[in-house]
């Protein structure tokens, strides 16, 4: 079971250490590599999450798989979490670390969803436009959702900028329903 409070504490400690050593980007990349592997590799995930296997075995496997690919700080913290039986909080630490890094650099995380993959020019123009509008640095995460029919949708913080056909039709539907309710 994921404990967000625990993940936040680990992430906070890791971020401060990484920031002090100037390896924030490297540690973030490492943790996302481990988190993505946990997400994509079911056998690895089952082994790491299973209470049947000992902590030493899990630490040995982790060292064997990621020892040469990740920073020492990342590896040590991961092994520490394994020794504390907090392996299920690793993905949470990764996302929390990213949030801390963005807060520290005053970067706005924006999720851009489009019906087709955006071109590099489109991405650059969009980020530029959003940065000029918000006055903040934008870190965009791109997704594709064909159900939007056409257009693009941007979500950041508590805001949603919906330029999709599906969104426009939904707004039209709500307007019409509102008018009908007023008539009734």
């Amino acid at each position, binding site marked *: 079971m994921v404990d967000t409070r625990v993940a936040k504490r680990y992430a906070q400690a890791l971020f401060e250490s990484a920031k002090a050593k100037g390896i924030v980007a490297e540690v973030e990349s490492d943790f996302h590599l481990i988190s993505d592997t946990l997400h994509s590799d079911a056998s690895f995930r089952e082994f790491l999450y299973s209470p049947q296997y000992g902590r030493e075995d899990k630490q040995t496997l982790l060292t064997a798989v990621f020892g040469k690919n990740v920073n020492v700080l990342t590896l040590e913290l991961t092994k520490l979490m394994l020794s504390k039986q907090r392996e299920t909080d690793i993905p949470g630490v990764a996302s929390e670390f990213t949030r801390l890094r963005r807060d520290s650099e005053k970067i706005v995380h924006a999720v851009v969803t489009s019906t087709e993959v955006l071109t590099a020019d489109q991405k650059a123009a969009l980020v530029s436009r959003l940065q000029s509008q918000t006055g903040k640095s934008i870190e965009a995460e791109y997704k594709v959702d064909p159900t939007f029919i*056409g257009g693009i949708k941007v979500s950041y913080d508590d805001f949603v900028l919906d330029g999709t056909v599906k969104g426009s039709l939904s707004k039209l539907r709500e307007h019409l*329903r509102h008018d009908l*309710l007023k008539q009734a």
Partner: protein
Amino acid sequence: MSTEKKSSVSTGAAFVAGVVLMVGGMFLRSKTEGLKESLEKMGLPIDLGMTVAVIGVFLILFPVIQFFFITPLGDAINDRNNTLEQTFTEAEELRAEMQKMRADYEAQLVRTEADARATIQAEVKKAQELGASLRAEATKRADEMIAKAEQEISAEKARAINDIRVHVVDLSLAAAEKIIGENMTTDRNRKLVEDFINGVEVSA
């Protein structure tokens, strides 16, 4: 008291007169043999002396007859008369009492009938009032129910019409979504994206 004294005097006088008449009659018979024979010859077999003597004996025996026969008979008659009078009196009293009871009964009956009539009229009036009240209440409730039903029907009708309109809107938008989806091309999508990028405005 005076009646008894008077009766004893008359009885004594009758006894004396009887003795005188009996003795006189016997004497007269002995002295009137010729007259008796003359009368028998004339076809009248009357013995005057014997007749007077018999009258005297009757007068002597009259108190006895009176004592043993007439007086008890008179007493019995008087008792009978008294009994009859008492019976008649009682009968009259009973009849009067019966008449009085009948009059009372009839008066009571009249009063009872009047009371019953008044009670019936009062109950009828009360029932009529209650009926009118119930009818008014029922009419009021019926009117309220009808008004409520009409209101509900109207609301339900408006709701149904609105549901139909909403359904029409959903169908229209679903059709529009389908048509737009079928006609959406990469160029059109790119145009939409570029329009969005150029026109996007972020509220502070």
